[in-house]
């Protein structure tokens, strides 16, 4: 490809790409960014106060009780693990089979993955009755507990995702370092460290390609493991609604739906806020729209298996659970998540004119809401239908009603994840400069001048 361009053309093309992609990092976003940060910080302060209350008074500040002892926090944890899985889907699965259109969205997917994987590890602490004893998990950790497996794989996944974010950044940061010599000292220092002395020799390119390839292969089993193990927190128990053999793949397929929706939201945001219409163009949206249809169809298949098979049998115990979801007190949330989070997106996105940024943004938003609610109705209703009747306890123990502090803490953790994404997208280019240039036919020499 590079042979087709002469030196000058190559240079001007590269300059355009580099300028476009670096501009968002240096541009003063002014009020909009300040309002955005202010909003996130407000959410975080509310979180801080709520968590202080929880530390002081115990988990009793939440709506949890002995018959719904996992609630919003655990649902949120599952949601975060799910959202982080998209990094593996895009970088590893699509990357390894050589799909080209992922170049402009690969880094966005990794940013989403890193933010949510890091937060998944953190949110679980907010659910602990004794967070001060966190170290006990390392001191007395027992291998037969799925919690220990979860901790191991979430940590591994976070590290590999971070590496998959940082490695392809190396050539970019070398470029940025050269093009922005007057940047603030700390930024130059950061770029200097993270570009690892990259000057663009063939050997350096080769080693980056090799490392990314190895990690892309490694992350596939690790990513499958984090969500499968997360599903086992439920599937390893004997409760109606959790006692299922397909929970692993069911969770993984749902994770891809949530993750792709997050990537669409981020794409839309960067396209407008960072003025990247030429890179995150309609065709990329069209492709990602089709990807969302594909993963949603797989998810629908698992939903049919998970709900219709028990509904056909109506086994004692399962019957009550299924009926409260289909027609009982959980029906509203259940059908919202099924229709807006799964069925409707499939139907709408089959039409080409719906696979446009504006529509897709709205659909992705619905999918994410549906995805969060879905985790909530996987976690909560099952506990409210135990094997033995709930008796001799306050009436309130028959239901679960999240409290203000609990909601504030949950929103706070979502705010934190978005804040991490905002910061990463501000200090690093959200689209790979060197890979975009390579695809545009620019040779390595021009890139590393």
């Amino acid at each position, binding site marked *: 490809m590079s042979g087709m361009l002469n030196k000058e053309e190559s240079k001007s093309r590269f300059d355009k790409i580099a300028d476009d992609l670096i501009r968002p990092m240096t541009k003063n976003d002014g009020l909009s960014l300040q309002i955005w940060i202010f909003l996130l910080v407000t959410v975080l302060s509310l979180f801080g106060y709520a968590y202080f209350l929880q530390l002081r*008074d*115990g*988990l*009793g500040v*939440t709506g*949890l*009780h*002995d*018959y719904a*002892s*996992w609630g919003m926090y655990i649902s949120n944890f599952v949601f975060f693990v799910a959202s982080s899985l998209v990094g593996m889907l895009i970088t590893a699965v699509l990357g390894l089979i050589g799909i080209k259109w992922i170049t402009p969205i690969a880094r966005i997917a990794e940013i989403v993955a890193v933010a949510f994987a890091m937060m998944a590890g953190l949110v679980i602490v907010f*659910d*602990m*009755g*004794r*967070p001060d*004893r*966190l170290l*006990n*998990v390392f*001191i*007395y*950790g*027992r291998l*037969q*507990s*799925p*919690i*220990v497996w979860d*901790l191991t794989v979430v940590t591994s996944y976070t590290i590999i995702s971070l590496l998959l974010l940082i490695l392809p950044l190396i050539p970019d940061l070398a470029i940025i370092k050269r093009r922005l010599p007057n940047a603030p000292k700390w930024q130059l220092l950061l770029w200097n460290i993270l570009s690892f002395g990259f000057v663009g020799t063939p050997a350096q390119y080769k080693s980056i390609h090799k490392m990314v390839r190895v990690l892309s292969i490694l992350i596939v089993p690790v990513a499958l493991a984090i969500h499968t193990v997360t599903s086992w*927190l*439920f599937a*390893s*128990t*004997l*409760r109606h609604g959790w006692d299922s053999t397909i929970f692993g793949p069911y969770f993984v397929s749902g994770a891809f739906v949530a993750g792709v929706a997050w990537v669409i939201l981020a794409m839309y945001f960067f396209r407008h806020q960072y003025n990247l219409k030429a890179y995150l163009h309609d065709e990329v949206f069209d492709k990602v729209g089709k990807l969302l249809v594909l993963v949603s169809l797989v998810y629908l298949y698992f939903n049919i298996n998970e709900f219709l098979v028990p509904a056909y049998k109506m086994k004692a115990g399962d019957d009550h659970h299924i009926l409260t979801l289909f027609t009982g007190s959980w029906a509203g949330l259940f059908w919202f998540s099924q229709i807006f989070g799964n069925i409707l997106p499939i139907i709408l996105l089959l039409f080409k004119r719906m696979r446009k940024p504006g529509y897709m943004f709205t659909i992705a938003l619905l999918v994410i809401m549906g995805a969060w609610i879905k985790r909530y109705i996987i976690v909560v209703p099952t*506990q409210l239908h*135990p*094997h*033995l*009747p*709930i*008796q*001799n*306890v*306050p009436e309130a*123990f028959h239901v679960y009603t999240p409290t203000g502090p609990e909601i504030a803490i949950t929103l706070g953790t979502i705010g934190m994840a978005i804040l991490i994404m905002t910061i990463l997208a501000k200090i690093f280019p959200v689209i790979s400069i060197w890979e975009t240039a390579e695809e545009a036919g620019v040779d390595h020499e021009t890139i590393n001048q």
Partner: protein
Amino acid sequence: MCDTKENAGASRLDFLKSGLLAGAAAVTGVNLLSSFTPIETSSEQKVKVLTPDGHIVEVEEAKMVPVREIKQELGLTELQQRGREGIAGKHWVMVIDLAKCRNARKCMESCQNAHHLKPEQHHINVLQMQDGEHTAPYYMPKPCMHCDNTPCTKVCPVDATFKRQDGIVLIDNERCIGCRFCVAACPYSARVFNWTETLDEKNSYNAPYNIELNVPQKKGTISKCLFSADRLRENKLPYCVSACPNGTYWFGDMNEDAVTNGTTGETVRFSELIEKNDAYTLLPELGTKPNVYYLPAKDRQFPFDPEDKKKLNESHKH
């Protein structure tokens, strides 16, 4: 297990011989020898004494002082250690005769008092059961089943809940991180959590933590039925068993094949009792292998409360 005990015993004897008595008393909790000095006693009358863990030591008769509460002398480490080990050679079992239960709830009351529980926290809970729309309702006390295939201890990430050699499933609230995975895992809803400040914390009750009683209760940790492990240590029946006025409970050792009724004090063969009365376990299809057996609620001695019956019928309609 036995090795540890023998070693502990041997080291005590060494201590006695070398006269390090204060140390010995602190380690073993046996303080009947507190003024013992080997030099003066060479000519005095000596008596052989059996220590609590089965060793014979010689003691000067004149210096012997009776001890009331040995267990209070034990520190946290010793309580934890013996609590985790359990009582050797025992396999505790409970039989609940549903025909005798009339929902007096004395078991619940004595249990809550013993374990310093709040009104909504039950280690044992008397449930009103009705298996089908047309079957007769009955009262069913439900403690922890102390399963042999325990769903709860399997999932604990820190070994804070564990099954010991005598079959009792205990909880160590000095180690529990409050993840509540065991609550999710228990199909019998036998576990409770201290969501807020506990009664012990409110009353600043500061005794060393007794793992066999799970007292003092701690905020942010689990509590559950312990088969009154502290009472078994003293050769007494569990709190609930002795509190029952109606003879509902039998409790004993499966290895001895003997269970004792908490109300009448009568002791019978466990195997005969469950065979003759067609005993069953709760939710056997889950494979948890409970150590609590139920005798069917047939030929009931007390009528089911009509008010309760009405409530049950309503709950069936839901």
